């Protein structure tokens, strides 16, 4: 399916050795759910949502940025961060660095998270978007560091943070460094909260494991795309462990909404407007009073005391 999405988008993050990748416009794209065929140009215009059944196809980071932010506003940061391979990991004769390099050539990113600044419906944001094609958007050191820098950029620039997450879980090749990124990224969000800046988390298909159990579910508003499969444990693991067949619709965005785990399910075409509206609502929050007397003033005269 990914092969069908090779058109170079407007804000493509570039990678070394990246040459022309233009694609003929007459390529057919088949919906994986209902087999509906559409021209690649039409698919792009439909934001890769199937006009017949509404299936939301997975997007690359570049396509996601393209469909979410105001045209021409995305500026990428920290694209130069790459893997260091602390475990000197080799499995099946393939070294981690080689595997990552090959993923990089395929996706034109250096790791599974693309970060930068942009505006969404005129609201400036610090943005972090996963690239699922890069090793299943598993969270390793580069991912964690880039996300924390995006959070710090939000704090420094008084910007809202928008994260778009789709992930298979941990980066096995970095073992405990991968697990610890859950702690690192989530801890950074505490500072964003102290600065009274909003974190809006968009969960997209599929989102599992460490990402679901860390920064992506600690947000002021959690939004998901229709039909996205989201959970902590993967469906196959659950079936194996519990020896139960999973009920229809289990772990879908709609299921999570029903169980009170997310705020909204929003179709792709409406995302910029809805996220822009939320950012506008949250944007009026003033910067909190500084450290020592904050607790006292906060409880005494909140509104007055917080204005510097």
């Amino acid at each position: 399916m990914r092969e069908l999405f090779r058109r170079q988008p407007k804000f493509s993050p570039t990678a070394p050795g990246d040459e022309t990748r233009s694609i003929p416009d007459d390529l057919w794209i088949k919906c994986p759910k209902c087999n509906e065929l559409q021209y690649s140009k039409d698919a792009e215009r439909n934001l890769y949502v199937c006009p017949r059944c509404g299936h939301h196809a997975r997007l690359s980071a570049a396509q996601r940025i393209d469909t979410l932010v105001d045209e021409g506003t995305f500026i990428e940061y920290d694209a130069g961060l790459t893997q260091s391979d602390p475990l000197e990991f080799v499995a099946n004769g393939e070294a981690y660095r080689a595997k990552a390099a090959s993923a990089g050539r395929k996706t034109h990113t250096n790791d599974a998270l693309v970060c930068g600044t942009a505006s969404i419906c005129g609201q400036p944001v610090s943005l972090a978007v996963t690239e699922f094609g890069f090793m299943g958007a598993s969270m390793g050191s580069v991912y964690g560091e880039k996300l924390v820098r995006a959070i710090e950029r939000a704090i420094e620039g008084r910007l809202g943070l928008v994260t778009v997450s789709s992930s298979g879980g941990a980066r096995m090749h970095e073992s405990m460094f991968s697990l610890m990124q859950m702690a690192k990224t989530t801890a950074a969000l505490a500072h964003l909260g102290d600065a009274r800046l909003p974190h809006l988390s968009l969960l997209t298909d599929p989102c599992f494991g460490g990402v679901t159990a860390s920064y992506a579910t600690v947000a002021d508003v959690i939004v998901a795309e229709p039909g996205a499969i989201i959970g902590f444990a993967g469906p196959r693991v659950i079936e194996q462990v519990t020896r139960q067949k999973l009920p229809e619709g289990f772990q879908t965005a709609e299921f999570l909404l029903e169980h009170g785990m997310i705020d909204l399910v929003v179709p792709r075409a409406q995302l910029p407007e809805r996220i822009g509206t939320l950012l506008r609502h949250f944007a009026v929050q003033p910067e909190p009073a500084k450290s020592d007397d904050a607790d006292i003033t906060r409880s005494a005269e909140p509104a007055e005391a917080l204005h510097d």
Partner: protein
Amino acid sequence: MTEQLNAWDRVQLARNAARPHALDYINELVKDFVELHGDRLFGDDHALIGGIGDFRGRTVVVLGHQKGANTRENIDRNFGMPRPEGYRKALRLIRQAEKFNLPVLTFIDTPAADPGLGSEERGQGNAIAENLIAMAAMRVPAIATVVGEGGSGGALAISIADRILMLENAIYAVASPEACATILWKDAAQAPAAAEILRITAHDLHGFGIADEVIPEPVAAHLQPSATIQRAGDAIERHLRDVEQTIATMGIDTLVATRYAKYRGIGRWVDNGETILRNGTVTNAPNGTEHVTSMQHSGSR
């Protein structure tokens, strides 16, 4: 004596049913312990226990994963795999610790967070994540000790602390060796090889700067439970005193900032120093600096 063991040997020791579990540590180290129950939302999880008691002269809040010693106990304890209500009980007790300014001691020993249907319905991911952010910012000291199996996010959820200690035969892993072997070779029987390449032993994690101290097991813990527990208690007390000293001299803000700096610094990457703008223009020349984890403290005296 246990120094020559390979990673898989240590996995076996970490999982040994006779190995002291959280309640064994609590019974021996925490006087007048009162177990507190329930998350006030849904239920009481038996795989993650918590309570309040006296640890060597000070009141502490204690949290721990609890495995059973036999099958019947393990069914009651869900094999030490907490459900969301376990993590939410932990969060409630962390808030209580902050309210009464009490240190938090945690004992880590779980194969994983529970992967069942109910846990998914009740937001397992969110329950873990809320603990991570709460513990990262909590304004009381915390010492986490991995006493057996440190199983992925299920372990991490009560391990965010000022110090992470590991028993010599404890392990701490991003995924179980069996799961890793299944992913890498589609064969869970390759778990011993996976255990080796994942670098999950206490010595590995100390080397990576993630664990602050390895508590020696000259004899495996299940063969000398009481001596092992006392040795762990001594290490916990020493680190707790050290952390309390930081608060006394530099204040709680410094402790919280130091804790954040510790986690902020974990990870290894290469920074080629380029910022790529939307039109593909590369600014800044690559400098290729490599970041390695640097710890604020070695954990020893």
